[in-house]
Protein backbone atom coordinates (compact mmCIF):
# COMPACT_ATOMS: atom_id res chain seq x y z
CA UNK A 1 0.00 0.00 0.00
CA UNK A 2 1.38 3.31 -1.06
CA UNK A 3 2.07 5.35 2.03
CA UNK A 4 0.69 8.74 1.11
CA UNK A 5 0.32 11.31 3.86
CA UNK A 6 -3.38 10.70 3.97
CA UNK A 7 -2.89 6.97 4.35
CA UNK A 8 -0.43 7.51 7.17
CA UNK A 9 -2.87 9.82 8.84
CA UNK A 10 -5.67 7.30 8.51
CA UNK A 11 -3.49 4.48 9.82
CA UNK A 12 -2.44 6.66 12.71
CA UNK A 13 -6.01 7.37 13.61
CA UNK A 14 -7.07 3.76 13.61
CA UNK A 15 -3.92 2.35 15.16
CA UNK A 16 -3.54 4.55 18.18
CA UNK A 17 -5.71 4.59 21.24
CA UNK A 18 -8.86 6.44 20.36
CA UNK A 19 -12.12 7.33 22.11
CA UNK A 20 -14.73 4.61 22.33
CA UNK A 21 -16.91 6.05 19.58
CA UNK A 22 -14.13 6.01 16.99
CA UNK A 23 -13.12 3.12 14.77
CA UNK A 24 -11.52 0.25 16.64
CA UNK A 25 -8.53 -1.63 15.35
CA UNK A 26 -10.52 -4.81 15.04
CA UNK A 27 -13.18 -3.63 12.61
CA UNK A 28 -11.03 -3.39 9.47
CA UNK A 29 -9.43 -6.71 10.41
CA UNK A 30 -12.83 -8.37 10.44
CA UNK A 31 -13.45 -7.16 6.91
CA UNK A 32 -10.23 -8.77 5.68
CA UNK A 33 -11.54 -12.23 6.51
CA UNK A 34 -13.75 -12.06 3.42
CA UNK A 35 -12.48 -9.07 1.48
CA UNK A 36 -8.80 -10.10 1.74
CA UNK A 37 -5.98 -8.57 3.73
CA UNK A 38 -5.36 -5.92 1.10
CA UNK A 39 -9.09 -5.28 0.62
CA UNK A 40 -8.66 -6.13 -3.05
CA UNK A 41 -11.49 -8.64 -2.82
CA UNK A 42 -11.79 -12.41 -2.61
CA UNK A 43 -14.72 -13.94 -4.46
CA UNK A 44 -17.54 -13.62 -3.79
CA UNK A 45 -16.62 -10.61 -1.68
CA UNK A 46 -15.92 -7.58 -3.89
CA UNK A 47 -12.85 -5.36 -3.81
CA UNK A 48 -13.31 -2.46 -1.42
CA UNK A 49 -9.97 -0.78 -2.02
CA UNK A 50 -10.23 2.49 -3.86
CA UNK A 51 -14.00 2.49 -3.91
CA UNK A 52 -15.82 5.83 -3.70
CA UNK A 53 -16.28 7.03 -0.12
CA UNK A 54 -19.91 8.04 -0.54
CA UNK A 55 -20.74 4.79 -2.31
CA UNK A 56 -19.16 2.67 0.42
CA UNK A 57 -20.97 4.60 3.11
CA UNK A 58 -24.28 4.29 1.25
CA UNK A 59 -23.81 0.54 0.90
CA UNK A 60 -23.09 0.12 4.60
CA UNK A 61 -26.17 2.20 5.29
CA UNK A 62 -28.34 0.22 2.87
CA UNK A 63 -27.06 -3.06 4.26
CA UNK A 64 -27.74 -1.94 7.79
CA UNK A 65 -31.28 -0.97 6.86
CA UNK A 66 -31.71 -4.21 4.92
CA UNK A 67 -32.46 -2.24 1.80
CA UNK A 68 -29.68 -3.95 -0.11
CA UNK A 69 -30.95 -7.50 -0.11
CA UNK A 70 -29.18 -9.58 -2.75
CA UNK A 71 -28.49 -13.13 -1.50
CA UNK A 72 -24.83 -12.62 -0.57
CA UNK A 73 -25.61 -9.36 1.13
CA UNK A 74 -28.29 -11.02 3.19
CA UNK A 75 -26.16 -14.00 4.08
CA UNK A 76 -22.81 -12.37 4.77
CA UNK A 77 -23.19 -8.65 5.21
CA UNK A 78 -26.34 -8.18 7.24
CA UNK A 79 -24.93 -9.79 10.38
CA UNK A 80 -21.62 -7.96 9.99
CA UNK A 81 -23.01 -4.50 9.43
CA UNK A 82 -25.28 -4.83 12.45
CA UNK A 83 -22.19 -4.18 14.56
CA UNK A 84 -21.06 -1.09 12.65
CA UNK A 85 -22.39 2.29 13.77
CA UNK A 86 -22.63 5.28 11.39
CA UNK A 87 -19.49 6.95 12.66
CA UNK A 88 -17.50 3.74 12.20
CA UNK A 89 -19.05 3.33 8.78
CA UNK A 90 -17.87 6.80 7.81
CA UNK A 91 -14.33 6.13 8.95
CA UNK A 92 -14.25 2.71 7.35
CA UNK A 93 -15.49 4.12 4.06
CA UNK A 94 -12.93 6.90 4.16
CA UNK A 95 -10.11 4.50 4.97
CA UNK A 96 -11.03 2.07 2.22
CA UNK A 97 -11.39 4.81 -0.35
CA UNK A 98 -7.75 5.78 0.09
CA UNK A 99 -6.31 2.35 -0.68
CA UNK A 100 -5.07 2.09 -4.30
CA UNK A 101 -7.17 -0.47 -6.17
CA UNK A 102 -5.76 -3.35 -8.21
CA UNK A 103 -7.63 -4.53 -11.30
CA UNK A 104 -8.92 -8.11 -11.14
CA UNK A 105 -8.41 -8.75 -14.89
CA UNK A 106 -10.31 -12.00 -14.68
CA UNK A 107 -12.87 -11.47 -17.43
CA UNK A 108 -12.85 -12.92 -20.93
CA UNK A 109 -10.18 -10.95 -22.80
CA UNK A 110 -11.89 -11.57 -26.12
CA UNK A 111 -14.98 -9.71 -24.98
CA UNK A 112 -13.12 -6.53 -24.02
CA UNK A 113 -13.79 -4.77 -27.30
CA UNK A 114 -17.51 -5.40 -27.34
CA UNK A 115 -17.76 -4.60 -23.65
CA UNK A 116 -15.96 -1.32 -24.17
CA UNK A 117 -18.37 -0.40 -26.95
CA UNK A 118 -21.37 -0.92 -24.70
CA UNK A 119 -19.73 0.97 -21.86
CA UNK A 120 -18.63 3.99 -23.89
CA UNK A 121 -21.48 4.26 -26.38
CA UNK A 122 -24.44 2.44 -24.89
CA UNK A 123 -27.01 0.92 -27.21
CA UNK A 124 -29.53 3.62 -28.10
CA UNK A 125 -31.63 1.29 -30.24
CA UNK A 126 -32.02 -1.03 -27.26
CA UNK A 127 -32.55 1.81 -24.79
CA UNK A 128 -29.34 1.08 -22.93
CA UNK A 129 -27.56 4.23 -21.77
CA UNK A 130 -23.81 4.67 -22.07
CA UNK A 131 -22.30 3.76 -18.71
CA UNK A 132 -19.60 6.37 -19.22
CA UNK A 133 -22.10 9.18 -18.63
CA UNK A 134 -22.29 8.40 -14.93
CA UNK A 135 -19.34 6.13 -14.19
CA UNK A 136 -16.74 8.12 -16.11
CA UNK A 137 -14.30 7.37 -18.95
CA UNK A 138 -12.19 5.04 -16.80
CA UNK A 139 -15.08 3.60 -14.83
CA UNK A 140 -13.76 5.53 -11.84
CA UNK A 141 -17.11 6.76 -10.57
CA UNK A 142 -17.77 9.97 -8.68
CA UNK A 143 -19.55 10.84 -5.46
CA UNK A 144 -22.10 8.14 -4.73
CA UNK A 145 -21.50 6.48 -8.10
CA UNK A 146 -19.15 3.53 -7.67
CA UNK A 147 -15.84 2.83 -9.30
CA UNK A 148 -16.35 -0.20 -11.54
CA UNK A 149 -12.93 -0.34 -13.11
CA UNK A 150 -11.05 -3.46 -12.09
CA UNK A 151 -13.81 -5.08 -10.09
CA UNK A 152 -13.92 -8.85 -10.42
CA UNK A 153 -15.80 -10.36 -13.38
CA UNK A 154 -17.96 -12.73 -11.30
CA UNK A 155 -19.09 -9.93 -9.03
CA UNK A 156 -19.95 -7.48 -11.82
CA UNK A 157 -21.74 -10.13 -13.79
CA UNK A 158 -23.72 -11.27 -10.79
CA UNK A 159 -24.86 -7.77 -9.88
CA UNK A 160 -25.89 -6.91 -13.43
CA UNK A 161 -27.77 -10.20 -13.70
CA UNK A 162 -29.49 -9.65 -10.40
CA UNK A 163 -30.75 -6.27 -11.45
CA UNK A 164 -31.62 -6.97 -15.02
CA UNK A 165 -32.63 -10.51 -15.59
CA UNK A 166 -33.38 -12.19 -12.35
CA UNK A 167 -35.62 -9.49 -11.13
CA UNK A 168 -35.89 -8.58 -7.55
CA UNK A 169 -33.09 -7.07 -5.53
CA UNK A 170 -34.16 -3.79 -7.07
CA UNK A 171 -35.43 -2.00 -4.04
CA UNK A 172 -32.09 -1.79 -2.36
CA UNK A 173 -30.24 0.04 -5.08
CA UNK A 174 -30.40 3.69 -5.87
CA UNK A 175 -31.75 4.92 -9.20
CA UNK A 176 -31.12 4.64 -12.04
CA UNK A 177 -29.25 1.37 -11.82
CA UNK A 178 -31.88 -1.29 -11.69
CA UNK A 179 -33.53 -0.10 -14.88
CA UNK A 180 -30.29 0.52 -16.77
CA UNK A 181 -29.36 -3.12 -16.50
CA UNK A 182 -32.81 -4.40 -17.41
CA UNK A 183 -32.29 -4.14 -21.15
CA UNK A 184 -28.97 -5.98 -21.24
CA UNK A 185 -28.78 -9.49 -22.64
CA UNK A 186 -26.64 -12.09 -20.90
CA UNK A 187 -24.01 -11.84 -23.62
CA UNK A 188 -23.87 -8.09 -23.20
CA UNK A 189 -23.55 -8.45 -19.45
CA UNK A 190 -20.67 -10.87 -19.91
CA UNK A 191 -18.97 -8.45 -22.30
CA UNK A 192 -19.43 -5.49 -19.97
CA UNK A 193 -18.21 -7.39 -16.92
CA UNK A 194 -15.21 -8.70 -18.83
CA UNK A 195 -14.22 -5.26 -20.10
CA UNK A 196 -14.62 -3.64 -16.71
CA UNK A 197 -12.50 -6.22 -14.93
CA UNK A 198 -9.56 -5.02 -17.01
CA UNK A 199 -10.10 -1.28 -16.59
CA UNK A 200 -7.48 0.37 -14.43
Amino acid sequence: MKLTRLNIAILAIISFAVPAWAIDVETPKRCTVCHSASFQGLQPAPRLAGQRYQYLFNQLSDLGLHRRDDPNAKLFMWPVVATVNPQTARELALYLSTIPPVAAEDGDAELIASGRKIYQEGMPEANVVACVACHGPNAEGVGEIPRLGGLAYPYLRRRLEQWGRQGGYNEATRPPMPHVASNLSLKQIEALASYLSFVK
Partner: protein
Amino acid sequence: MKLITSYRGRGTEVGDEPMVLSFPSAPAGTPREGCRRRIVKASGLRLALQLAIAVVVFATAAGGAATKALAFSSHELAAKIAYCQDCHGPAGQGYRGFYPMPRLAGQQVEYFEDQLRAFVEGRRLNSIMSPVARSLSPAMMTALATDFRAFNPRPLGGDRRELAAMGEKIFQDGVPEQNVPACAACHGPEATGIKQIPRLSGQLYLYMVKTLTNFRKDRKEHLSDVMYPVVESLNKRQIEAVAAYVSSLR
Protein backbone atom coordinates in the same frame (compact mmCIF):
# COMPACT_ATOMS: atom_id res chain seq x y z
CA MET B 1 -28.29 12.03 3.76
CA LYS B 2 -31.44 11.68 1.75
CA LEU B 3 -32.40 8.11 1.00
CA ILE B 4 -34.41 7.46 -2.10
CA THR B 5 -36.90 4.74 -1.35
CA SER B 6 -38.42 4.06 -4.70
CA TYR B 7 -37.14 4.30 -8.20
CA ARG B 8 -40.50 3.50 -9.68
CA GLY B 9 -42.00 6.80 -8.69
CA ARG B 10 -41.81 9.24 -11.53
CA GLY B 11 -42.78 12.22 -9.45
CA THR B 12 -40.72 14.61 -7.43
CA GLU B 13 -41.60 13.23 -4.06
CA VAL B 14 -39.96 10.15 -2.73
CA GLY B 15 -42.27 7.22 -3.14
CA ASP B 16 -44.60 8.89 -5.65
CA GLU B 17 -46.32 6.46 -7.92
CA PRO B 18 -47.31 7.64 -11.36
CA MET B 19 -50.87 7.32 -12.52
CA VAL B 20 -50.60 5.75 -15.91
CA LEU B 21 -53.26 4.85 -18.36
CA SER B 22 -52.76 3.09 -21.64
CA PHE B 23 -54.91 3.42 -24.67
CA PRO B 24 -55.57 0.19 -26.53
CA SER B 25 -53.92 -0.15 -29.91
CA ALA B 26 -56.14 0.33 -32.94
CA PRO B 27 -57.56 -2.98 -34.13
CA ALA B 28 -55.90 -4.62 -37.11
CA GLY B 29 -57.30 -3.64 -40.45
CA THR B 30 -58.47 -0.14 -39.52
CA PRO B 31 -56.45 2.85 -40.58
CA ARG B 32 -54.00 3.55 -37.81
CA GLU B 33 -54.81 7.03 -36.74
CA GLY B 34 -51.63 7.71 -35.08
CA CYS B 35 -49.69 7.05 -32.00
CA ARG B 36 -51.24 6.58 -28.64
CA ARG B 37 -49.67 7.86 -25.58
CA ARG B 38 -49.46 7.05 -22.02
CA ILE B 39 -50.62 9.69 -19.68
CA VAL B 40 -47.62 10.80 -17.76
CA LYS B 41 -47.83 12.32 -14.40
CA ALA B 42 -46.89 15.94 -14.04
CA SER B 43 -45.33 16.16 -10.67
CA GLY B 44 -45.76 18.89 -8.20
CA LEU B 45 -47.70 19.51 -5.08
CA ARG B 46 -50.94 18.33 -6.68
CA LEU B 47 -51.52 15.43 -8.95
CA ALA B 48 -52.00 16.68 -12.48
CA LEU B 49 -52.73 14.49 -15.41
CA GLN B 50 -51.60 15.79 -18.73
CA LEU B 51 -52.98 14.16 -21.74
CA ALA B 52 -51.17 14.68 -25.00
CA ILE B 53 -52.12 12.70 -28.00
CA ALA B 54 -49.99 13.13 -31.03
CA VAL B 55 -51.74 12.09 -34.14
CA VAL B 56 -49.55 11.57 -37.11
CA VAL B 57 -51.17 10.49 -40.30
CA PHE B 58 -49.55 10.11 -43.62
CA ALA B 59 -51.78 9.28 -46.50
CA THR B 60 -50.88 8.48 -50.04
CA ALA B 61 -53.70 8.63 -52.49
CA ALA B 62 -53.26 5.97 -55.12
CA GLY B 63 -56.23 4.07 -56.35
CA GLY B 64 -57.11 2.13 -53.27
CA ALA B 65 -56.02 5.01 -51.01
CA ALA B 66 -53.56 3.11 -48.82
CA THR B 67 -52.84 4.99 -45.62
CA LYS B 68 -49.43 4.73 -44.06
CA ALA B 69 -49.00 6.00 -40.54
CA LEU B 70 -45.58 6.86 -39.17
CA ALA B 71 -46.14 5.94 -35.59
CA PHE B 72 -44.77 4.20 -32.58
CA SER B 73 -46.59 2.27 -29.94
CA SER B 74 -47.28 3.60 -26.50
CA HIS B 75 -44.96 0.89 -25.24
CA GLU B 76 -42.10 2.15 -27.40
CA LEU B 77 -42.63 5.69 -26.21
CA ALA B 78 -42.73 4.65 -22.57
CA ALA B 79 -39.54 2.63 -23.03
CA LYS B 80 -37.84 5.60 -24.67
CA ILE B 81 -38.92 7.97 -21.89
CA ALA B 82 -37.54 5.55 -19.29
CA TYR B 83 -34.29 5.46 -21.27
CA CYS B 84 -34.02 9.25 -21.16
CA GLN B 85 -34.84 9.21 -17.47
CA ASP B 86 -31.95 6.85 -16.75
CA CYS B 87 -29.58 9.75 -17.28
CA HIS B 88 -31.78 12.80 -16.92
CA GLY B 89 -33.49 11.76 -13.69
CA PRO B 90 -36.77 10.04 -12.82
CA ALA B 91 -38.70 13.28 -13.35
CA GLY B 92 -36.32 14.85 -15.85
CA GLN B 93 -34.77 17.04 -13.19
CA GLY B 94 -31.23 16.24 -14.33
CA TYR B 95 -28.51 14.20 -12.64
CA ARG B 96 -24.96 14.75 -11.50
CA GLY B 97 -23.15 11.78 -12.92
CA PHE B 98 -19.53 11.88 -13.94
CA TYR B 99 -20.85 14.47 -16.37
CA PRO B 100 -23.78 16.70 -15.43
CA MET B 101 -26.87 15.58 -17.29
CA PRO B 102 -29.14 18.57 -17.80
CA ARG B 103 -32.68 19.08 -16.65
CA LEU B 104 -35.22 18.31 -19.36
CA ALA B 105 -38.34 18.86 -17.30
CA GLY B 106 -40.39 21.84 -18.44
CA GLN B 107 -38.09 22.54 -21.37
CA GLN B 108 -39.46 24.43 -24.37
CA VAL B 109 -40.67 21.95 -26.99
CA GLU B 110 -39.10 23.75 -29.95
CA TYR B 111 -35.76 24.08 -28.21
CA PHE B 112 -35.83 20.42 -27.16
CA GLU B 113 -36.51 19.24 -30.71
CA ASP B 114 -33.94 21.59 -32.20
CA GLN B 115 -31.20 20.34 -29.89
CA LEU B 116 -31.91 16.73 -30.78
CA ARG B 117 -31.75 17.62 -34.48
CA ALA B 118 -28.54 19.55 -33.82
CA PHE B 119 -26.97 16.44 -32.27
CA VAL B 120 -27.92 14.41 -35.32
CA GLU B 121 -26.66 16.98 -37.81
CA GLY B 122 -23.46 17.70 -35.92
CA ARG B 123 -24.34 21.32 -35.24
CA ARG B 124 -23.98 20.47 -31.59
CA LEU B 125 -21.18 18.16 -30.51
CA ASN B 126 -21.58 15.57 -27.77
CA SER B 127 -20.26 12.03 -27.96
CA ILE B 128 -23.00 10.64 -25.74
CA MET B 129 -26.00 12.51 -27.14
CA SER B 130 -25.19 12.20 -30.85
CA PRO B 131 -25.79 8.42 -31.00
CA VAL B 132 -28.83 8.85 -28.78
CA ALA B 133 -30.40 11.48 -31.03
CA ARG B 134 -29.66 9.43 -34.15
CA SER B 135 -31.79 6.61 -32.78
CA LEU B 136 -34.86 8.85 -32.60
CA SER B 137 -37.38 9.43 -35.37
CA PRO B 138 -38.69 12.99 -35.78
CA ALA B 139 -42.07 11.89 -34.46
CA MET B 140 -40.42 10.37 -31.43
CA MET B 141 -38.45 13.59 -30.84
CA THR B 142 -41.70 15.55 -30.81
CA ALA B 143 -43.34 13.08 -28.46
CA LEU B 144 -40.42 13.19 -26.02
CA ALA B 145 -40.28 16.99 -26.15
CA THR B 146 -43.99 17.21 -25.39
CA ASP B 147 -43.82 14.72 -22.54
CA PHE B 148 -40.83 16.25 -20.83
CA ARG B 149 -42.41 19.67 -21.12
CA ALA B 150 -45.09 18.44 -18.75
CA PHE B 151 -42.76 17.34 -15.96
CA ASN B 152 -42.39 19.88 -13.19
CA PRO B 153 -40.09 18.63 -10.41
CA ARG B 154 -38.25 20.86 -7.97
CA PRO B 155 -34.83 22.03 -9.10
CA LEU B 156 -32.14 19.48 -8.35
CA GLY B 157 -30.31 21.75 -6.00
CA GLY B 158 -29.02 25.27 -5.83
CA ASP B 159 -25.26 25.27 -5.73
CA ARG B 160 -23.14 28.25 -4.78
CA ARG B 161 -26.09 30.05 -3.26
CA GLU B 162 -23.85 32.86 -2.16
CA LEU B 163 -23.43 33.87 -5.80
CA ALA B 164 -27.14 33.87 -6.61
CA ALA B 165 -27.69 37.52 -5.77
CA MET B 166 -24.90 38.62 -8.09
CA GLY B 167 -26.28 36.26 -10.69
CA GLU B 168 -29.73 37.73 -10.41
CA LYS B 169 -28.40 41.19 -11.12
CA ILE B 170 -26.61 40.00 -14.24
CA PHE B 171 -29.62 38.00 -15.35
CA GLN B 172 -32.14 40.78 -14.95
CA ASP B 173 -30.04 43.83 -15.80
CA GLY B 174 -27.14 42.58 -17.87
CA VAL B 175 -23.67 44.08 -17.55
CA PRO B 176 -23.76 47.25 -19.66
CA GLU B 177 -20.08 48.06 -19.19
CA GLN B 178 -19.20 44.67 -20.67
CA ASN B 179 -21.81 44.84 -23.43
CA VAL B 180 -23.69 41.92 -21.90
CA PRO B 181 -27.44 42.19 -22.41
CA ALA B 182 -29.87 41.10 -19.74
CA CYS B 183 -30.50 37.37 -20.06
CA ALA B 184 -34.09 38.06 -19.09
CA ALA B 185 -34.59 39.99 -22.30
CA CYS B 186 -34.64 36.73 -24.27
CA HIS B 187 -34.98 33.98 -21.69
CA GLY B 188 -37.75 35.75 -19.81
CA PRO B 189 -37.74 37.36 -16.38
CA GLU B 190 -38.29 33.96 -14.80
CA ALA B 191 -35.92 32.16 -17.15
CA THR B 192 -38.72 30.08 -18.62
CA GLY B 193 -37.61 30.66 -22.20
CA ILE B 194 -39.91 30.66 -25.22
CA LYS B 195 -39.99 28.64 -28.44
CA GLN B 196 -36.38 28.15 -29.53
CA ILE B 197 -34.98 29.95 -26.51
CA PRO B 198 -34.41 27.48 -23.72
CA ARG B 199 -35.84 27.45 -20.27
CA LEU B 200 -33.00 27.92 -17.79
CA SER B 201 -34.90 27.86 -14.50
CA GLY B 202 -33.96 24.87 -12.40
CA GLN B 203 -31.13 23.89 -14.73
CA LEU B 204 -28.14 22.19 -13.13
CA TYR B 205 -25.47 24.56 -11.87
CA LEU B 206 -22.60 22.44 -13.20
CA TYR B 207 -24.30 22.05 -16.55
CA MET B 208 -24.88 25.80 -16.86
CA VAL B 209 -21.25 26.58 -16.01
CA LYS B 210 -19.99 23.96 -18.44
CA THR B 211 -22.28 25.13 -21.23
CA LEU B 212 -21.51 28.81 -20.88
CA THR B 213 -17.79 28.15 -20.63
CA ASN B 214 -17.58 25.78 -23.59
CA PHE B 215 -20.31 27.36 -25.68
CA ARG B 216 -18.41 27.89 -28.87
CA LYS B 217 -16.36 24.70 -28.53
CA ASP B 218 -19.41 22.44 -28.43
CA ARG B 219 -21.28 24.09 -31.25
CA LYS B 220 -20.74 24.65 -34.92
CA GLU B 221 -21.47 28.05 -36.40
CA HIS B 222 -25.04 29.28 -36.60
CA LEU B 223 -26.36 27.36 -33.63
CA SER B 224 -27.37 29.95 -31.09
CA ASP B 225 -25.13 32.55 -32.73
CA VAL B 226 -26.63 35.25 -30.59
CA MET B 227 -25.07 33.67 -27.50
CA TYR B 228 -21.46 33.86 -28.65
CA PRO B 229 -20.74 37.53 -27.85
CA VAL B 230 -22.60 37.13 -24.56
CA VAL B 231 -20.63 34.18 -23.25
CA GLU B 232 -17.35 35.63 -24.40
CA SER B 233 -17.99 38.85 -22.51
CA LEU B 234 -18.73 37.15 -19.22
CA ASN B 235 -15.87 36.26 -16.91
CA LYS B 236 -15.67 33.04 -14.91
CA ARG B 237 -17.16 34.47 -11.77
CA GLN B 238 -20.08 36.00 -13.62
CA ILE B 239 -20.80 32.69 -15.33
CA GLU B 240 -20.85 30.94 -11.98
CA ALA B 241 -23.10 33.62 -10.56
CA VAL B 242 -25.66 33.38 -13.35
CA ALA B 243 -25.56 29.59 -13.11
CA ALA B 244 -26.11 29.72 -9.37
CA TYR B 245 -29.06 32.05 -9.82
CA VAL B 246 -30.96 30.15 -12.50
CA SER B 247 -30.30 26.77 -10.89
CA SER B 248 -32.32 27.89 -7.90
CA LEU B 249 -35.31 29.14 -9.86
CA ARG B 250 -38.47 27.11 -9.76
